[in-house]
């Protein structure tokens, strides 16, 4: 029995991601009692303390894997877990992942808009219903879950889903007509009325909204490059101008000492430069770049570009 526990602890110590079985805390307690009796002579006390801390930390973080879905043994033995795991598990396991996956699918769907297929209305319609469904079911559950609680406390549990949702929502906006929804619009989407006629909502922090806009730029950049492939030149310029505006907006924020944020600004800059290069190549290489015949002015005399005017603006 001892040998197995020892193995377990040492694999934790060496950073191997193991499955900590339920009732680990019992082991920890057992271990402590053994240590007290000094029966564990070949391990130094500090090493051993360190080990226990590490396990407890792992359990606190909730990134322990269990074979069973219900980890009652753990929760009963650990008050910290008891306070946190139930709700975070509820949010983490179900809603957050569902929202993230569904949002990603909506984004993917929106990428299929193509002037050649003339499918814009249909795709927009479907995206809209799916976005609405997300707001009315998944987010509503979260809002009910967090009713009357400090939402910032559990923000971590649903932030990824939320960011992805904002990205999908704003991308839908962009495809629809090049505009950007304000924070109020997005927040109002996630306000509900519960059975006692009270207003409940799923909080959208303003910071997350701006980060979502930062994520959106990656999608717009992809759209720009895809449009080049399908010969929709106008959309390339459109996307590029849209990105330039967002970039200017981010420049106006200035420096925020937040690691995520800095990373986003950097990626955004890269996206802008990429799009600018796409537009530049269309201008310079004309036909070579877009696989279309270039007229002698370097403009496109192509059937695909419907309303062709000087410079596509």
């Amino acid at each position, binding site marked *: 029995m001892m040998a197995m526990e020892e193995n377990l602890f040492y694999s934790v110590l060496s950073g191997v991601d193991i499955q900590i079985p339920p009732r680990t805390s019992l082991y920890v307690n057992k271990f402590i009692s053994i240590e007290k009796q000094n029966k564990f002579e070949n391990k130094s006390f500090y090493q051993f303390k360190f080990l226990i801390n590490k396990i407890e930390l792992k359990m606190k973080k909730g990134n322990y894997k269990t074979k069973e879905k219900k980890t009652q043994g753990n929760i009963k033995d650990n008050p910290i877990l008891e306070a946190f795991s139930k709700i975070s598990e509820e949010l983490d396991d179900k809603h957050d992942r569902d929202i993230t996956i569904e949002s990603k699918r909506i984004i993917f769907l929106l990428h299929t808009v193509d002037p050649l297929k003339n499918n814009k209305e249909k795709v927009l319609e479907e995206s809209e219903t799916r976005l609405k469904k997300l707001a009315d079911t998944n987010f509503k559950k979260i809002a009910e879950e967090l009713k009357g609680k400090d939402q910032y406390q559990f923000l971590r549990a649903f932030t990824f889903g939320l960011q992805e949702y904002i990205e999908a929502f704003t991308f839908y906006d962009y495809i629809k007509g090049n505009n950007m929804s304000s924070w109020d619009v997005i927040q109002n989407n996630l306000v509900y009325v519960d059975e006692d006629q009270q207003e409940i909502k799923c909080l959208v922090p303003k910071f997350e909204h701006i980060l979502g806009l930062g994520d959106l730029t990656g999608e717009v950049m992809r759209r720009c490059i895809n449009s080049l492939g399908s010969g929709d030149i106008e959309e390339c310029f459109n996307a590029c*101008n849209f990105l*330039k505006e967002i*970039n*200017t907006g981010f*420049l*106006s924020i*200035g420096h925020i000492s937040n690691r995520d944020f800095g990373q986003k600004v950097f990626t955004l800059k890269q996206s802008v*430069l990429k799009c*600018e*290069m796409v*537009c*530049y190549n*269309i*201008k*310079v*290489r*004309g036909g070579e770049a877009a696989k279309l015949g*270039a007229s*002698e*002015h*370097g403009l496109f005399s192509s059937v695909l570009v419907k309303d062709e005017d000087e*410079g596509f603006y």
Partner: protein
Amino acid sequence: MSNPQAQEIFDAFNEYLNAEQEIRENIRECVKELDNVSKQATIVLQIIHSDIKKIPAACQQAREHFANCKSIFTKLAALIPVGQYYRYNDHWHFVAQRIVFLIALTVYLESEELVSRDKVAEILGLQVTQEKGFHLDLEDYLLGILNLASELSRFAVNAVTAEDYERPLKISKFVGDLNSGFRMLNLKNDGLRKRFDALKYDVKKIEEIVYDISIRGLTNNGGGAGAE
């Protein structure tokens, strides 16, 4: 503390610390203002990437912002005790670089010349040498100029998109000269050196643009009409 001597020593030191703290607070206020003004100028000048026609107007607006910077710098200079410029310098060196870059960009857009350190100092109401008082640090000036090169490489791309094929040629010559100029300096192994090492990528990018438009005869002196 029961030891009066110790008490005295630490009281005096605490006073000194408090005084320094206060100076730093005031400096931070000024720097925040500078930051705001420089942000506004940055936004104004972003127009160069999307609408070439609006450049003269943008330069004019930027100039107004620089006039504001001048008055804030005057305020800031009054806060710094004589001979302690480098004690507090880390508060404003970042924003100073940014303002240098913005001024350099504006001057380049107006006259296609490199703004001199004296000229920047004059626009901001600063001295050039340390002896004369609150001055513009040489390193800040150079870093601002390096940032100009990066912005111009982006500008060259967007100028082509806006069908201004002459501009990249001029930018190429200008940034090439900057590069030669920096090569004449013996830089230490510090941040400036690192930043200078990145300059070659800007040079390369602009050279590629010039190559692109030259082989397609898109420039006037190229003589050709399109790449048939």
